[in-house]
């Protein structure tokens, strides 16, 4: 019942905040967002699930209730957490509280609606990560879209409408394609339910038959590609990434934190759940082209970041190579590859939020985000500078921060991957780290070092403002020092899959 309680509390909180007067909405939302946070931390400590939820493991806090029966297919309310979803649930709760706190003083119109939408997004995200039935998952998946669209379109920067509609159209087309692909697949199998585990079992055991004028093999391939396309858009792999810089840059900082920190993780999480876990044969077969795509994503994303003059847009682009690393680890289908991908999702969520909060703080203090207009802010804005440096170094993979651990796991797993030329592809992708370090150092040097320069007088906001960012840095360090805090449960879940397909390391 814990998952239901989390969802119910968060949805109710969203409505309570919506009805609250604008003056109190922020404080109320901050207090109420602690409830799911505490709940998710309790879930973390009380977690007793074993194995992978899709591969016969026992998810924690599992409930199955028949929901509806359509055309002979049972659709259940089926939720539960395993080692892959648990870290993301905690990440969602943490980053929502951060976003709510970070919104203080940054949002000055229609505040009740803003905080309500944040909490509504959180509830939907929790649903996406805990659903174990396709329809339930899809309902929550689509739920995320509407509040995110409004958050960007109503509260964003000057080009918010364009960015919001682009985000909406891209992700909706992606949703439609993946929905059709998955339903096609299920119709072609003898299973009579949309439970993810049941479908995974049917696909793995080769129970797919030909339909829609396609052979069984072609149909499976089409479904695989449809799902991959859907998740690739959401995760912003090159060449499906163009919505990302616009949406991240135009969204207000708190929304960017949620977008970059959690919403893109929906894509990579689902990629792991659907494409990897359900189609072990195809992921083996397609590993090389997908890994090449990952390497392209890494290199293209980091080179594009190198060309940015707007600090926020630069940070937006840094997300793309990180998602490329997640893809690289996922297609490796080895123990460390998959576990590293999951770990990297959490780590990236923490660190990219730190960077966006720091850049947002710089913008608030100076009125601009243009790197060439800023210089020497380090002694004027010491806390912001410290946070920005910490976030950037974590991102570059400084040992003892979570970024290093995540990337290290991914590369270890990817090197040992069984597909041909795995080492070459991994080495090429690793080169991306150098570029990442290059542009982040350029950002630090340009904005923080040198003689002071800013278009207006610098008005530092209160130090409390960056408290959430500091907490995130500490969390990142904690995970860097003791990755076992998450890796144990994660490896338990991915281990079941690796054992199944006989992957290594």
């Amino acid at each position, binding site marked *: 019942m814990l998952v239901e309680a989390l969802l119910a509390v968060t949805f109710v909180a969203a409505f309570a905040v919506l009805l609250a007067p604008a003056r109190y909405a922020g404080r109320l939302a901050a207090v109420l967002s602690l409830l799911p946070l505490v709940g998710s931390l309790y879930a973390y400590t009380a977690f007793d699930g074993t194995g992978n939820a899709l591969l016969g493991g026992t998810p924690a806090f599992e409930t199955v209730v028949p929901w509806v029966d*359509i055309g002979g297919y049972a659709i259940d309310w089926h939720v539960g957490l395993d080692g892959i979803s648990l870290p993301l649930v905690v990440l969602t709760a943490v980053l929502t509280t951060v976003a709510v706190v970070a919104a203080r003083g940054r949002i000055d119109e229609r505040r009740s609606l803003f905080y309500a939408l944040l909490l509504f997004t959180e509830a939907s995200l929790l649903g996406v990560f805990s659903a174990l039935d396709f329809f339930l998952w*899809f309902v929550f998946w*689509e739920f995320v879209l509407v509040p995110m669209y409004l958050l960007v*379109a109503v509260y964003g920067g000057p080009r918010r*409408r364009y960015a919001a509609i682009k985000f909406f159209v891209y992700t*909706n087309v992606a949703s*439609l394609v993946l929905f*059709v692909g998955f339903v096609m697949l299920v*119709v072609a199998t003898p299973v009579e339910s949309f439970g993810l585990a049941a479908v995974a079992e049917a696909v793995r055991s080769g129970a797919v038959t030909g339909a829609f004028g396609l052979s069984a093999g072609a149909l499976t391939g089409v479904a695989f590609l449809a799902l991959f396309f859907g998740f690739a858009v959401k995760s912003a792999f090159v060449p499906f990434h163009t919505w990302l810089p616009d949406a991240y840059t135009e969204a207000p900082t708190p929304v960017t934190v949620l977008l970059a920190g959690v919403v893109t993780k929906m894509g990579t999480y689902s990629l792991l759940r659907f494409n990897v876990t359900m189609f072990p044969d195809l992921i083996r077969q397609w590993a090389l082209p997908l890994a090449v795509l990952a390497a392209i994503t890494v290199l293209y994303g980091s080179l594009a970041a190198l060309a940015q003059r707007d600090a926020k847009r630069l940070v937006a682009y840094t997300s793309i190579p990180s998602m490329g690393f997640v893809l690289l680890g996922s297609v490796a289908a080895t123990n460390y590859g998959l576990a590293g991908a999951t770990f990297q999702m959490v780590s990236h969520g923490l660190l990219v939020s730190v960077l966006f909060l720091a850049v947002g703080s710089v913008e608030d203090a100076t009125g601009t985000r243009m790197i060439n207009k800023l210089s020497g802010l380090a002694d004027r804005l010491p806390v912001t500078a410290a946070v920005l440096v910490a976030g950037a170094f974590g991102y570059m993979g400084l040992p003892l921060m979570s970024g290093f651990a995540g990337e290290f796991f991914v590369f270890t797993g990817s090197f040992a991957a069984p597909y041909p030329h795995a080492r070459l592809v991994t080495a090429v992708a690793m080169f991306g780290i150098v570029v990442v370090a290059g542009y982040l150092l350029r950002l630090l040097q340009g904005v923080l070092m040198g003689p002071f320069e800013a278009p207006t007088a610098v008005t530092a906001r209160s130090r409390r403002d960056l408290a959430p960012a500091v907490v995130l840095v500490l969390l990142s360090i904690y995970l860097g020092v003791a990755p076992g805090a998450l890796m144990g449960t994660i490896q338990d879940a991915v281990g079941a899959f690796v054992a199944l397909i006989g992957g290594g390391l």
Partner: protein
Amino acid sequence: MALPALTPQYVLGLAALLVLVVDAFTPTSRKNGLLAGLTALAGVTSAGAAAWLYAGGAGRTTLFDGALAVDASTSFFTAVFGCVAALVAVASYDYVREEPHQSAYYALVLLATAGMSVMAAANSLVTAFLALELVSLPAYALVAYLKRDAGSAEAGLKYFVVGALSSAILVYGISLVYAATGVFGFAALADAVAGNAHVTVLGAGVVMLIGGFAFKTASVPFHFWAPEAYEGAPAPVSAFLSSASKAAGFVLAFRVFLLAFPLAAFEALGIPWTLVFAVLAVVTMTLGNVAAATQTNVKRMLAYSSIGHAGYALIGLAALSGPTSSDVAVVGASFSHLFVYGFTNTGAFLVVALAERWGVGRTFEDYAGLARSAPVASAVLAVLLFSLAGLPVGGGFWTKYALFLGAVQSGLWWLAAVGVVNSALSLFYYSRLVKAVWVDAPDETGVARERPTGIYAAVVVAAVVTVALLVAPDVVFSWADAAARALVSA
């Protein structure tokens, strides 16, 4: 307690007469509220009686020498009509408050509803035609109710001319079918068409019947009256016609084609009418959605979207393939789509009624920033529109999915593919309205808007039911399935 099988129809008919009586004895100042309350009560009571009859599980009851037959599909659709009529009556309380002849308005709504519920019980082509006229005649008058308003009068006239033409076509079709078979009753027709010698006459009759139903359901090729009539008519009447009247046309079409014209017998004669419906479904949904996407007027956009939804519902007739189980599934999907649509579409039109009352203009731009002055109504509108588009925020998600799945299971996956593409297109224009309402800045800020109780209550109920059907769809789906089974395996 065993109710007479026609209780809902009696309730509606008697309530219409009662409205006229009450009108004669009530002071003008209290009239509107009393009449609206009476109408809504009659709607809810008939829906409740229908649910009661269904729960009693009486099976099929034939009355009046086989002229009417009451089964689960009758009760299902009577519930839809009753609910829509109640919503419309409650909303009309505010809409017609300042208009003369209120009793006529409410009585016509009730008479039309009674006609619809008789359509849902028709078991012979004669009663079918009579019931259809009982719906059509009040509907013409209702569209032209604001008779001093040029738009309303013009819409009423257009609606009447096209309606009279299509009635003529329908009755001619009935006469041709009679010429070929010599019977009117559905059961007798089913026997008489098997191996019928007059294939050409029968086929021409069936085509004309399809034309008559196309008019009532606002499907291609008799759809063009709908945007005109819905735009000019008072918004609650548009809601009533585009939801309840359309559903009534569909239930009659389903009854005629499932009970009187068995597919197998017609295929043996070389008249594959499912193919006709498949083509009509594709053309109707595509035309409706493409046209809706190009509108700048909100009411016309909703009118064209309602044509698109007729196309989705037609899948229920197009995807019949023979095996009982898949036929029940797809017909049931079509029924439940009409049920959800009854609430969702009515709600959307009633929000337009609200906007008309506020004097907001008619185009998308006029709706800009409505969310700032009317957050509740705007939230309701967003939920309703996204549900119409098939996003999982309302019951429309399940029913669209069930329809497309039904088409796939009958082997018509291309039809499902067309439906999916159309759904995606529809999201484009629905979200344009949501964007106008929630994102765009209003021309003037700080507008205080009155909150007409009746319309607000109606739209909130519509939205709550829509969302409730996402969470707990089984209540309606099982009823729709029973309704479909009653017709498919009759």
